[in-house]
Structure formats: structure tokens, C-alpha cells
């Protein structure tokens, strides 16, 4: 088993507000293994930003323990905590670059803090500019850079201290889709080639699909479901996870129909089941048609997964036969409740 680089044990965070106590995190237990790209997904207000900030103790948990690399961070003095923090970098939605320093000056910043000798630091910063493909912008100021370029500089800055973990707080939420893809590809490369553990906070399922191997779904300050992304994609158990993994409004497609809400199933195909015309065969075998409601192809951590929502035959017997056929063929499917929605409504 790989070692746990980050462990949260019974982490609870309460905020005192004018309206009384607000519980932002409730008894969170989370183990992240070295080399993971661990996604934490939830709607805004679910507590995911607070959660990621407890990892480097930007937020002090009210209760519970944060363990990094075997040492307990909670309860440490500032000096010791700062030493550990240098091993945990962070990137942000708003980039948070120093506006008065140029690109290379920003990358030098964590090295200055750590007291790295100037010549060595400069060499490293220049090398990191290459890693993020911005060698030619060394002396540009953040105000002269695009959003994507700013995030690349922020990533180079995050790499400067040779971290073991990078916390990504909605790192692509302020970027357009094309830039988002290139930033995610860069982060993926960093995770794979350097073995740096990523903790990815996002509200976008696409980010999880493209970047993460594991995911935790957080709702109202609690982790309601967690596991391998491919597993949860196949069989999301909780409503929250279903809402996130079912075809959603991001494609901006209206659901084909709202009339048939009964007997709907969601199928997931992977490389093993995609080669065969299973649905066509099922129709011929059982002798009853199905109604197609939705279909698309996802790329999940590099491998393709298809998902499809179909409406089975109206009478129960035929529908059972169809389900049996699917099970026999090894296609993963789950039934969708009558009151569950997908399409644009699912966003709410």
C-alpha cells in the first residue's frame, strides 16, 4: 500500500458568525496517498474551500487532527508549521500573484522566503519558466499576462519549493475552456512526471474527469461519497454524486424529453464493452424497443468512457428482460429514480 501523505482525522470547523455558529466541516476523515490526484467536488458553500485550507492550516480546525507526512500539523508553533508549509504549495482561482513583481520575481518569492541563495534561486526560477512554457515572459508583470499565463506562473511558483503536495483551489474556474484544458494537462503532467500529489478543489465535474484518479463528494460540510473516479462514475451511490456524475447542464443540451421519467437507466460503457453493439443486440434479442434520452463520451483520466441514458420498455416484464440482458453482457447500469432530473435542471 502506498503511504498516506495527508490524513485528516475528525476535522471539524465551526465559524462564529453574527447569526450564531456555522458548522463548515463536520467530522471529516480523509486519507490521501502519495501520488494521488485527489479531487474534492461539491457545490459552492459545501465547505470544500475550507476543507483544503485546513490541510495547510490556513484554517485552524476547531477539532480534529491534520497529519502531513507522518507529522501532526495541528498544534504546531508558527515556525515549525511554516517549515511544513514549504512542502505544501497552493494555487488559487484568482492566481494571487504579487502585482508589483514580474513573472520571475514571483517564482523567486518562495525561494527568498526559504532563504535559498540568489544564484541558485535564479537558475531554478528560469528552469521553471521553461517547465510552464513562459521563458519569454520572465520580465512581464502580472498585469501584462493573460489569465492562463498568470496561472502558469503561479504553478511555476508552486513548484519552486519542491513541494510534495500542490493544493489547487478552483485553479481553472476563472479560465476559459481552452485555457482550462491546457492548465489541467500541465497539472496532470506534474502529477505524473514529478509524482507530486494533487488535491483538487472544484465544482466542475470535467476537472475531476480530466485530472483526478480519486474523488470525494462533499455536501453540507460532510464527505458523502468517495473512491476511485472510474468506480464512482460507473456507480454513484448518493444523490449528490449522481447529480454530479449524471449528464448535466454543462453540455448546455436540453434533455430530449421530460415525459418519460419511468424505467430510465444510465449505462456506462468502457473499452471492454464499447466494441459490441449491445443496445442494438438487446433490442433484437428481447424484441422491444428502447428510447434514447442522452448519450455522450467522456475521457476519464486518459481512458474513454461512454454514458447513455435510455428508457426501457414500459411493461415491467420486458424491462426486467432487458436489464438481465445488460447484466449478462457486463454493462454497468443504474436505475434513475422518477424524481431525479438530469439536463439543465440538475445544475440547481
Amino acid at each position: 500500500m502506498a503511504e498516506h501523505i495527508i490524513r485528516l482525522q475528525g476535522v471539524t470547523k465551526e465559524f462564529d458568525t453574527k447569526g450564531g455558529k456555522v458548522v463548515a466541516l463536520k467530522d471529516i476523515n480523509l486519507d490521501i496517498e502519495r501520488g494521488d490526484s485527489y479531487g474534492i467536488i461539491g457545490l459552492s458553500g459545501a465547505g470544500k474551500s475550507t476543507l483544503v485550507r485546513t490541510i495547510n492550516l490556513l484554517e485552524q480546525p476547531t477539532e480534529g487532527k491534520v497529519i502531513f507526512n507522518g507529522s501532526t500539523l495541528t498544534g504546531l508553533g508558527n515556525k515549525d508549521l511554516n517549515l511544513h508549509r514549504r512542502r505544501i504549495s497552493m494555487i488559487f482561482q484568482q492566481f494571487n500573484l504579487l502585482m508589483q513583481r514580474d513573472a520571475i520575481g514571483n517564482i523567486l518569492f518562495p525561494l527568498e522566503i526559504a532563504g535559498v541563495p540568489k544564484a541558485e534561486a535564479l537558475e531554478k526560477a528560469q528552469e521553471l519558466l521553461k517547465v510552464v512554457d513562459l521563458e519569454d515572459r520572465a520580465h512581464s508583470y502580472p498585469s501584462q499576462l493573460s489569465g492562463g499565463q498568470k496561472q502558469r506562473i503561479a504553478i511555476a511558483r508552486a513548484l519552486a519549493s519542491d513541494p510534495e503536495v500542490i493544493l489547487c483551489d478552483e485553479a481553472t474556474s476563472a479560465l476559459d475552456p481552452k485555457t482550462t484544458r491546457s492548465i489541467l494537462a500541465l497539472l496532470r503532467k506534474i502529477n505524473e512526471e514529478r509524482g507530486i500529489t494533487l488535491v483538487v478543489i472544484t465544482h466542475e465535474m470535467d476537472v475531476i474527469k480530466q485530472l483526478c484518479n480519486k474523488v470525494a463528494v462533499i455536501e453540507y460540510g460532510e464527505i458523502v461519497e468517495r473512491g476511485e473516479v472510474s468506480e464512482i462514475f460507473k456507480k454513484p451511490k448518493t444523490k449528490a454524486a449522481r447529480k454530479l456524475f449524471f449528464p448535466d447542464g454543462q453540455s448546455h443540451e436540453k434533455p430530449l424529453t421530460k415525459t418519460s421519467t419511468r424505467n430510465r437507466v444510465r449505462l456506462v460503457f468502457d473499452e471492454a464493452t464499447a466494441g459490441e453493439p449491445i443496445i442494438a443486440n438487446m433490442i433484437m434479442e428481447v424484441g422491444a424497443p428502447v428510447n434514447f434520452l442522452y448519450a455522450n463520451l467522456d475521457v476519464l483520466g486518459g481512458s474513454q468512457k461512454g454514458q447513455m441514458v435510455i428508457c426501457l420498455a414500459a411493461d415491467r416484464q420486458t424491462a426486467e428482460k432487458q436489464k438481465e440482458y445488460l447484466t449478462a453482457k457486463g454493462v454497468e447500469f443504474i436505475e434513475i429514480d422518477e424524481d431525479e432530473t438530469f439536463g439543465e435542471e440538475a445544475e440547481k
Partner: protein
Amino acid sequence: MDTQTLIQLLGEGTVQTLIMTLVGTLVSYIIGLPVGVSLIVTGPNGIRPMPAYNKVMGFLVNVIRSMPFLILMIAFMPYIRMVIGTGIGTWATTSALILAAWPFVARMVEQSLLEVDPGVIEAAQAMGASNMQIIRKVLLLEARPSLLNGAAVATITILGYSAMAGTLGGGGLGDIAIRYGHYRFQPTIMWITIIVLVILVQIMQEIGIKLAAKMDNRIN
């Protein structure tokens, strides 16, 4: 009064005013800058909240700021005389200026530092920067343009105070305006000192704006 004497008088007055203003501003910053930084750092959203210190210092700053400069100068005159041996002249006025101006400077500094993006401070904390490193490398540097603009405003305000101090025998251009322009009914001298003061203010403002713009890397 012949032109020669007038020019000499105005020259000495201008030099005195500049000394009072610049020394006054400098010392006010030596006191006010750390106080302003401490107000931000110990504030409720600061990097090291210290509610008791913050309240007490904030109150002290407000008390002194609510006293009009002339009243403050008169009230503190006996103490200034005790410390530096005289209640009139350039150095007595400079002392009074510092006494009145440091809280003003502290508030200006506080305002400038408030403009620093909290996200950048958070990023520095996440990197493991100590509070001292955050103050020196993030707060003061990111706020530099605003601090320079503030310094120009502070210098001009202190120049205004020094002219007021002239009514109490404080020396400098204000003193000349009162003694010659007012008491001896020489409106020409009055207006000449006013023109010299206007020119001084213009120069200081220009330097402040130019320097702040030159030091600001956000606009290009």
C-alpha cells in the same frame, strides 16, 4: 523693505518651512509607519490579530487626530518647552508637527495597506512566510504606489500645519505671512508667501504622483 531684504527673508522662510516639513514628515513616518502596519497586522482580519492592542492604539490615534492642530500645539507647548528648552522657532514647531502628524500618517499607511489583496497575503502564508516576511515583502511592497501617494498627501498636510504654526511664532513662511503680511499690513508679502506655498505644494504633489506611477508595475 527693499527687494534684497525681502528675497533674503523669503529665502530663509522657505528653507525653514522645508526643514520643518521634511524633518516633521520623516519623523512622523518613522513613528507612524510601524504604527499603521501594526494596526493592519493586529486588526480582526490581520495576520496576527491582537484585539486589545488594536483597540488601544486605534483609540490613541483617534484622540490625537480629533484635536485641531493649533489647539494641540498650544496645549503641548509647555511640555515641548520642557523637553527641548524653547517653545518657539523651527524646532519647537517641528516637535509639535510630529506630535500631531504621526497618527495621521498611521491612518494613511493603514488605508494603503488595506488595499493589498488578501489573496496574495494568503498565498504568502501558504508558502510558509513568517509574519515579518509578509510585512516586508508583501504588504509594504504591494502597497508601495499607494504609500507614496499617501506620503505626498501627508507632506502637504504637514506643510499646511507648519504654516499654521507661524501664528504662534513658529518660524517659516507662515510666520512671515503673519508678521509682515498681517500685523504690518503688507498684503504684497502676504500674497508672495501664499504663492511660494502654492508652488511648494504643487512640486510635492507632482513628485508624489510621478514617483508612485513610476513605482507601480500594475499599469504599463
